[in-house]
């Protein structure tokens, strides 16, 4: 009975996810000229400076934005977990970015970060900088711009997940700790953080996968000027019509995500995974 109910889903996953991915995998191992099995595409990729750059950019953006998003999300969640009328209103306000489409976020951020944009304007009005910073001409500035744009969009999701975690902690534990004379920092480190660990893991996994696959923000904000693996795979096909290299870079990205995930899960061990 269950098999009949679930078969449409399985057939769909097979036809529209598994088979295309399989074809991409096969394509990535085919030699461009002879159509034989070979690793030539991967060799070509690793020799390309632009690919190595894209790889570096992806790791930078994913790493920095994850750390930043978890930190900011945790701070917000801790503040908003108090139950007052104001925090209830703020909770509603802070889920706003979740509702803004990523493509729209990219457009918005282009107004903020362009050379005559608002962030330069504000920094200059506050006389923090003398000359406008060029955010959109590649290099570290552009990487930071994409990290900040991604944080704007995604921190609320992390906050929501962590908020659910904080609210699931038994309030009596805090009361007991207070009675025993524990300070705020002590309570945070000894009670909140350990009990929150599974939720942090959950947020890291859900976010981590998407952080490595980041596409719309760098694509719309930077296009050719700053590639990450996602946009590299896209542009390699769209601009140079090279489906083989595009496929190979997709597969490498997949392997990278999987490896990062396995390393992370190994590192946090069993206790971080009790929820997942």
């Amino acid at each position, binding site marked *: 009975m269950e098999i009949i109910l679930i078969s449409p*889903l399985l057939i769909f996953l097979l036809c529209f996810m598994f088979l*295309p991915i399989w074809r991409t995998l096969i394509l990535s191992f085919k030699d461009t000229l002879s159509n034989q099995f070979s690793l030539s595409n991967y060799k070509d990729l690793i020799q390309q400076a632009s690919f190595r750059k894209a790889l570096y950019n992806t790791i930078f953006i994913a790493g920095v934005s994850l750390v930043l998003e978890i930190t900011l999300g945790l701070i917000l969640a801790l503040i908003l977990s108090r139950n007052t009328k104001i925090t209830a209103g703020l909770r509603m306000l802070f889920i706003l970015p979740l*509702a803004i489409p990523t493509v729209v976020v990219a457009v918005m951020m282009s107004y903020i970060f362009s050379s005559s944009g608002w962030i330069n304007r504000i920094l200059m009005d506050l006389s923090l900088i003398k000359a406008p910073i060029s955010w959109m001409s590649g290099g570290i500035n552009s990487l930071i711009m994409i990290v900040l744009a991604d944080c704007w969009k995604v921190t609320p999701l992390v906050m929501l*997940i962590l908020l659910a975690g904080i609210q699931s902690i038994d309030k009596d534990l805090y009361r007991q700790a207070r009675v025993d004379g524990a300070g705020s920092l002590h309570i945070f480190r000894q009670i909140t953080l350990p009990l929150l660990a599974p939720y942090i893991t959950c947020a890291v996994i859900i976010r981590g996968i998407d952080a490595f696959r980041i596409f719309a923000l760098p694509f719309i904000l930077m*296009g050719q000027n700053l590639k990450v693996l996602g946009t590299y795979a896209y542009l390699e096909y769209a601009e140079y019509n090279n489906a083989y290299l595009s496929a190979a870079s997709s597969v490498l990205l997949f392997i990278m995500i999987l490896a990062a995930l396995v390393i992370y899960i190994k590192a946090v061990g069993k206790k971080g995974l009790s929820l997942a």
Partner: protein
Amino acid sequence: MKQATIFLVVIIFTILLLFPLYIMFKISVSQPSDIFTEKPSYLIRHFTLSHFKDIFASRGTFFLPLRKSLVVALLSTFFSLLIAIPSAYAISKFNYRLRYILILLIFMLRMMPEISIALPISIGFIKIGLFDTYFGLAIAHLIKILPVACFILVGIFSSIPIDLEKQARIDGCSRLRAFIWIVLPLSLSGIVVAGIFSFLLSWDEFIYASYLTLAHPTLPLKMYYYVSHPDIFYSATYAMIITIPVLILTFTFQKYIKAEYLSGAIKG
């Protein structure tokens, strides 16, 4: 002192949150003379709806993408629920191990960059004539939507006490009747959420749309067109037009949008 710090942090976060939105809104309702100056003002000087009017007046170039985005989003929501409701119900009845494996599998498939799925699919769709059609794009959007919809619904169906269903079966209900009369009403809010997520994921989808369309763009593609052929007012106004329905939907149903729905299925 501590209260003051928290207050300050909240204020800073709020400004950071609202400022980009405000700028987008400001550009979409400003006159060119207020934007293209050495130092544009922080406030809206001359409010105008002329950019919105221009876009609405452009007839087909606006209404056809709007229609495509709407139809595709509704189609993919319909198919998403049609496939996800029975599947998620079945998954929620599986034992822990099988459920875990299935969810892990879907997670693994999600790790593949979308390009690597979109490219073979667009080639396949050209062959079978689904390229640049409403139906074809809706199918492609399901790739993105179905895992999320199933996640949400598995969480919902698992939370319904199995005894209720058993009781109904004892009272002589068939399985289908028990599902329709007991399970569905109890999980209605979750189904609504799954539907909204499906709609939203399709409404702002960009990658599959850019691979699967040629002559008939969707709204996000149209907006991207004005980003790459710089027209700051049209891009801002299109961005507003895409965002407004999303905002309305999100705030109407915001009390249902909880982290539990996103992590419910993993909890086991």
